[in-house]
């Protein structure tokens, strides 16, 4: 019995909710629309409450580093847990408007914004060095990719027009027309991938979500 409750009932519940959502779209039945709407609100509540699940997991990993005094790592982890606790407490002083707290606001206006933008841009370095040391036209595929890429890059940079007057027109062709067949095909293929994945989930075959692997 326990096994059924733990597996089969869950897959049945997933399938029923999936069918309700599909019926809500194709059939104009008010009761179905109401149930689907309520389920979507519940999904939002569950997702919102689960937001700190990631935080709990990461804090657990770093707390273990501190407990075990993992060399070279534990003091960074201790600092992370300390910052998390301090800033969360600062925010809780005024939950409706946390940035009313000057220290909280200062930390986010300066440390968080700078670190976020710095981190997000770090790939620019890697692209520049990879462009020089790794992007090779080793076959026709890579050659076509690099040629189209260079024209789009020179179209995006205002200096492209200075190098050769035709560059913006060619670069724009790649952007407006050249890439459409490929991107359109990726949309179609991804759509079928999603339908297949949904079909297998409907019949309880895709179990990656539930933490147990097929």
């Amino acid at each position: 019995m326990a096994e059924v409750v733990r597996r089969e009932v869950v897959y049945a519940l997933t399938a029923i909710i999936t069918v309700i959502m599909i019926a809500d779209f194709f059939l104009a039945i008010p009761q179905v629309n109401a149930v689907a709407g309520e389920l979507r609100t519940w999904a939002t509540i569950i997702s919102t409450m689960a937001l700190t699940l990631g935080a709990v997991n990461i804090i657990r990993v770093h707390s273990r580093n501190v407990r075990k005094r993992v060399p070279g790592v534990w003091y960074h982890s201790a600092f992370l847990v300390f910052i998390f606790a301090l800033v969360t407490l600062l925010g809780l002083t005024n939950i409706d408007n946390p940035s009313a707290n000057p220290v909280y606001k200062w930390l986010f206006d300066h440390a968080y914004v700078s670190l976020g933008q710095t981190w997000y841009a770090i790939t620019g370095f890697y692209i520049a060095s990879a462009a020089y040391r790794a992007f090779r036209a080793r076959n026709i595929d890579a050659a076509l990719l690099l040629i189209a890429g260079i024209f789009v890059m020179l179209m995006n940079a205002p200096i492209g027009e200075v190098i050769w007057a035709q560059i913006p027109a060619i670069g724009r062709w790649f952007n407006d027309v050249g890439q459409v067949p490929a991107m359109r095909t990726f949309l179609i293929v991804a759509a079928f991938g999603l339908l297949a994945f949904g079909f297998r989930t409907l019949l309880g075959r895709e179990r990656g979500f539930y933490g147990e692997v097929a």
Partner: protein
Amino acid sequence: MSQETIWDRLQRIDRRVIYWLLFILLILPFLRPLGLPISISPQSRSLLEGLRKLKEGDVVVINISSGVSAWPECLPSLVAVSKVLIQQKAKIIYWTSFVDGHMTFEKIVEKVPGFKGLTYGVDYVHLGFYTGAEPTVAQLATNIRAIFTTDYKGTPIDQLPIMKGVNSAKDVKMVISSDTGDYGDYYIRQWRIPYGVPFAEIGIAMLFSNYQPYWPEIVFGMTGGAKGGAELEKLIGEPGDATVTMDAINTSHLLVVVAVILANLGYAATRRRR
């Protein structure tokens, strides 16, 4: 050791040399701007035309699904679009799926002088944060009050005049989304298609390719990152941050293009020798 050509030596330049070269090349244009003209793409032009069709009192939703970390790419488009919407006297509802979205909203209000003559809660409002991916976006289309019971400061939603009579996609004239990820797809699948709400994408440049197949039938207008922002700034005649960024793009792009060409000439030379 076979006779080492110039190409082989060039191949072994240390990575850090390229990183330093890039960072220096990024700094120079800010000190001595080139001021080269920016070409306008048809996608940005169609976005502006769509915005100009809005009439006074039309309710427009701006979805902020890009973080503080993407400001150099996404903030200029958000600022330019907000300026045009204020000129059209539209009512603007901001909401965000990023935990730091309120900082983006406050930055937009700071950078758009037009907000000074308007009243928060009557002409524009920020309803705050939501999460939950496609189910939440779909529920917003049918019942906004199920997801937002207050604005981002905690004021109950029914005390906001702008929200009177506005509770679903049927009451919204247009959705404009600034994305770094998938939320634009959710608005296309749950707002644009079922309810026909005009949709525009003003996210990072990378997403320009993802949404190009939808243009113009499903996505009426698009801007691609900082370049799109600079185009909008030029179209509305108010140069801003993106215009400065685009001026600095030249040197970094030249470095990448020259690097690829140089490396491949070397590769072709060594391959012919082998």
